[in-house]
């Protein structure tokens, strides 16, 4: 039940607090109000609501950090 899917915000209707989100070609309306997002953001949608912005930078930073730790451990 905690399933959530990642899509991209195509447009926002601020009056209705709704965003149109693209999930690999299908457009779905998702409710806003739980996270600060804008058009173009990749977002995680759960039970019809945008739960979080997806951060590619954070992911990349983490991979770089994990690599660093791994290399240090191997060298030690």
């Amino acid at each position, binding site marked *: *039940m*905690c399933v*959530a899917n990642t899509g991209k915000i195509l447009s926002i209707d601020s009056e209705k607090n709704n965003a149109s989100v693209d999930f690999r070609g299908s457009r779905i309306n998702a409710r806003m109000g739980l996270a600060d997002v804008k058009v173009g953001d990749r977002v995680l949608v*759960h*039970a019809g609501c945008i*739960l979080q912005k997806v951060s590619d930078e954070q992911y990349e930073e983490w*991979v770089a950090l994990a690599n660093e730790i*791994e290399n240090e451990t191997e060298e030690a």
Partner: protein
Amino acid sequence: MKDLKEIISFLKEYDGEEIRIMEICGSHTGAIAKNGIEAMLSEKICLISGPGCPVCVTPSAYIDRLIELSLESDTTVVTFGDLLRVPGSRESLREAQGRGAKVKMVYSPMDIIGIAKDSPDNKFVFAAIGFETTTPVYALLLDTLVKEKIENVKLLTALKTMPEVVDVLCSGGAKINAFIAPGHVCVVTGSRIFEPAAQKYHLPFVVSGFEGEDLLRTIYLLVQNKGEGKVINNYPSVVSYEGNEKAQALVEKYFTKADASWRGIGNVTGSGRLIRPEFSRYDAGSAGLEYDEKKNKACSCDKVIMGLISPEECPLFGKICNPGNPQGACMVSPEGSCNTRFCMG
């Protein structure tokens, strides 16, 4: 970070001390089965499913109360589809439909707003079950009801929180060495919520995504960190240490911490949430729904949920109990351990 190939061969060839890893998210249970993860692991790495499916841990008292409400002349119960076939102490909501229960299925709790506005003379009750992931959605629903002054909608809540039940599992008999922490719960709460349990029981928790590759990396990290009391975030694109603070604030505004009754486990102190007294006009009577009577006395859901037996060890599994004729909640939802095992082998 090792590449995936190295991780796969490490996990297949692992010959160290046995490690028992529990996943406590129903979506992880499904993803593990779908990706055939168990077959990729050495016999020394055991995966156990825990109480991660909200439908499976909802006690029969809650289902009975939903049925009662749905039979009131002016009330319709609105719910996610999964809940329809969960046995109450005598029948499920679907069975009750045969004697006039009014039930409507939706994709999102927010859909109830349009339904209620279209029928102002009728009352609607949303069956609000779920963990920390879904509670903010119910908070957003309450916020909308308050702001738009919609008075013909209430929630019957059975909301659960993970850390308290993890405490019960760690002190139970399942001998767990490590946890795959629920990724979408942590999106909301932050990875920090599992730190106290990690430190108290000296167990690693790795927050995981839901792709096969994510899960393999997670299991690798758990094996590498066996015996270490720490939380590792392996889902950093959406999970942070603090979590979604905006969602947390909205949850705090509308809900208060409360005890909760878990099917198969019983009452767990502080493991749930109830609507705050100041918003009680939106509550359809959620407090005190505690009793849990089995429809079929031989159902072993309680032991399956606690990780004490695997679904096949239940005497009813695959015989009288199957997805077409579920005897217990674990066979109903595609996230339930028995259903997953039956459908994906």
